[in-house]
């Protein structure tokens, strides 16, 4: 069971500039692309991306749900794989035998929630839920309130959001110091209204998503300078319709999610041009073999596929299931 074999099928050789008007979203092809990811064990890249496997399952599964094909992956195989990634400490690694880390533990919880399998945690082992929650809670720094990714101590607002996300799904927020974490997020705020990965760090759309997401979960969006941040986020849209993650950087499909969901949380989705962004995302899909890439002409992968599809869903693209921006 695996899903992030990454690139290799980007079949359509779009020559830049002369690409025809994009077709609509090729839903069936994207579904097939995701279903096919696990059959690519004869590619070296499949093995070199093992460190993303559990994230890959989450990205693929989420994309399938949004595309209206929630049953396109076999549930029992998915469950089996997820549990095979769990370690003694209660956390999950990227694949069986990989060490526990916040990133994969969050993916595991999200997958279980997506396929309605949270009760399985208790069925398999009493206190199964709490065991995961304790692992996550143990990564909070009691002094600063932020979270580490694993026992080795790297901290990042990505992990803080991950912790809040998974703990709120597990209904175990009481295990952590919310107030301290919230003050930490406040300390990450910059004059432009955005947030960085740590106090002092530059605003970045991905980190803004994580900080807004975390604040949203604990209903503290009142702490955000909505107008200023909304303006900064809206300036991420460039003339080709795509979004970048920081001033004067290149556009990339994944920001269709980070920027757009942040704007949605602030209630400012209409501050960018939806039809231009839709067009941009569609030019990044491979219309023959499915999958979406970071920008037109590049290799497709499941990461950009889910964030492209999720972006389209936020924009209300017809035929897609509605996504929650948090």
């Amino acid at each position, binding site marked *: 069971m695996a899903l992030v074999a990454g690139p290799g099928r980007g079949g359509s050789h779009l020559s830049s500039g002369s690409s025809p008007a994009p077709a609509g979203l090729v839903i069936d092809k994207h579904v097939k692309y995701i279903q096919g990811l696990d059959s690519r064990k004869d590619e*070296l890249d499949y093995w*070199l*991306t093992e*460190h*993303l496997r559990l994230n890959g399952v989450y990205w693929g599964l989420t994309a399938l749900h949004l595309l209206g094909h929630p049953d396109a992956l076999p549930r029992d195989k998915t469950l089996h794989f997820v549990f095979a990634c769990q370690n003694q400490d209660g956390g999950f690694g990227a694949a069986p035998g990989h060490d526990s880390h916040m990133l994969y533990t969050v993916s595991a919880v999200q997958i279980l929630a997506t396929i309605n399998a949270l009760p399985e945690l208790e069925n398999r082992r009493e206190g199964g839920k709490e065991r995961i929650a304790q692992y996550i809670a143990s990564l909070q720094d009691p002094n600063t309130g932020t979270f580490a990714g694993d026992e080795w101590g790297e901290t990042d607002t990505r992990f803080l959001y991950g912790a809040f996300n998974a703990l709120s799904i597990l209904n175990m927020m009481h295990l952590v110091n919310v107030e301290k974490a919230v003050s930490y997020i406040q300390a990450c705020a910059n004059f432009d209204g955005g947030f960085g990965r740590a106090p002092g760090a530059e*605003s970045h759309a991905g980190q803004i998503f994580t900080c807004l997401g975390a604040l949203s979960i604990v209903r503290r969006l009142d702490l955000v300078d909505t107008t200023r941040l909304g303006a900064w986020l809206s300036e991420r849209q460039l003339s080709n319709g795509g979004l970048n993650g920081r001033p004067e950087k290149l556009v990339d499909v994944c920001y269709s999610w980070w920027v757009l969901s942040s704007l949605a949380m602030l209630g400012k989705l209409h501050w960018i*041009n939806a039809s*231009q962004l839709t067009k941009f995302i569609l030019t990044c899909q491979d219309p023959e073999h499915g999958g979406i890439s970071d920008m037109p002409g590049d*290799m497709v992968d499941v990461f950009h596929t889910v964030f492209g599809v999720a972006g389209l869903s936020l924009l209300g693209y017809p035929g897609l299931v509605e996504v929650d921006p948090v």
Partner: protein
Amino acid sequence: MTSHGIPRSATREERTADARQRELKEISEYQRLVEEVNQKVQAEEFTPELLQKTAELLRRNPEYYTIWNHRRRIYVHEFQDLEKQVSAGELEEDSRVSQVLDIIQLDLQFLFPLLLKFPKCYWIWNHRLWLLQQATALLPVSKARPLWEEELGLVGKMLSRDSRNFHGWGYRRIVVQSLESPTLHGQSMSRQELDYTKQMIGINLSNFSAWHNRSKLILKVLDEENASDEERKKMLDAELELIHQALFDPYDQSLWFYHQNLMCSFDLDLAERSMAPNLSNEQRLTYIASERRYIEEVLEDAQDCKWPYQALIECTLLEAKLRQGLQDDDKKQILQWLKELKTLDPLREGRWVDMEQSLIKGTA
């Protein structure tokens, strides 16, 4: 993450039979290596050979975070072993120090080419930082500090290769913080770092990462030096002059965001956290008027540029805040600018319409 910026190339259907065979062989070699490393770690066979194998694996795949963890486990084991030998009287403290230093230096050297090749790989940066932290914890300051100093040089090199590298800037702040810490007998480097941002801006005006860092460092410098209001005002004047010089390219949004940052000192709601918090309202109004004149000049030469309009609106709204009310004439003027913005910047029409609505309703 995943496949950013990789052009579409031959798909797997296009591989020749030969290439297919080669790839299968590579896969089995890779898998054998992974298996070998994992088995040895599990059996705690922490030998130089195992270390070599992890290096081989990480050179092929630096994203394999578990292998980095293994590498650290091997070193922790080694460091503890050396300490035990010292306590048991089997090893001189001096040779423990020199052995630990050797291990750390060799690994830092191993990492350097990897970092050049994969400058956005979180795990490589993390591992470097861990090694340096070990140096601080296990070595005398006279040995640990030079390692951190060299690291500052290295991160400088990384940033001159890619001046916006997010990891690089974050890492630089951590290295500086360590060098400033009492543990390493350090002192504030804020002035020096402030100069560094100016140097980076001089190379590329559009470097928002440098402007951002500058905005943080200025506050730090002023606080550390217990700057008087007059000194703070001087700093503000100098920064305004700097940004005016830079704004000869009015299409660059990095510059306007920095300009907006400076304007915080004139904003009643934000001044407190700005570089010059104690200006009088009179002074604020004088500043705003002067900024307005400057922006109008910019606009004259760049009629098709949206940013001066946004800045003019901001000036007018700040003035209104200070005068406790928006004059009718000003309101008309803003509505006129918003009309221009809707034409010049249609992507963000929704934002301009919202602003228009709130002006008309009087809630702006």
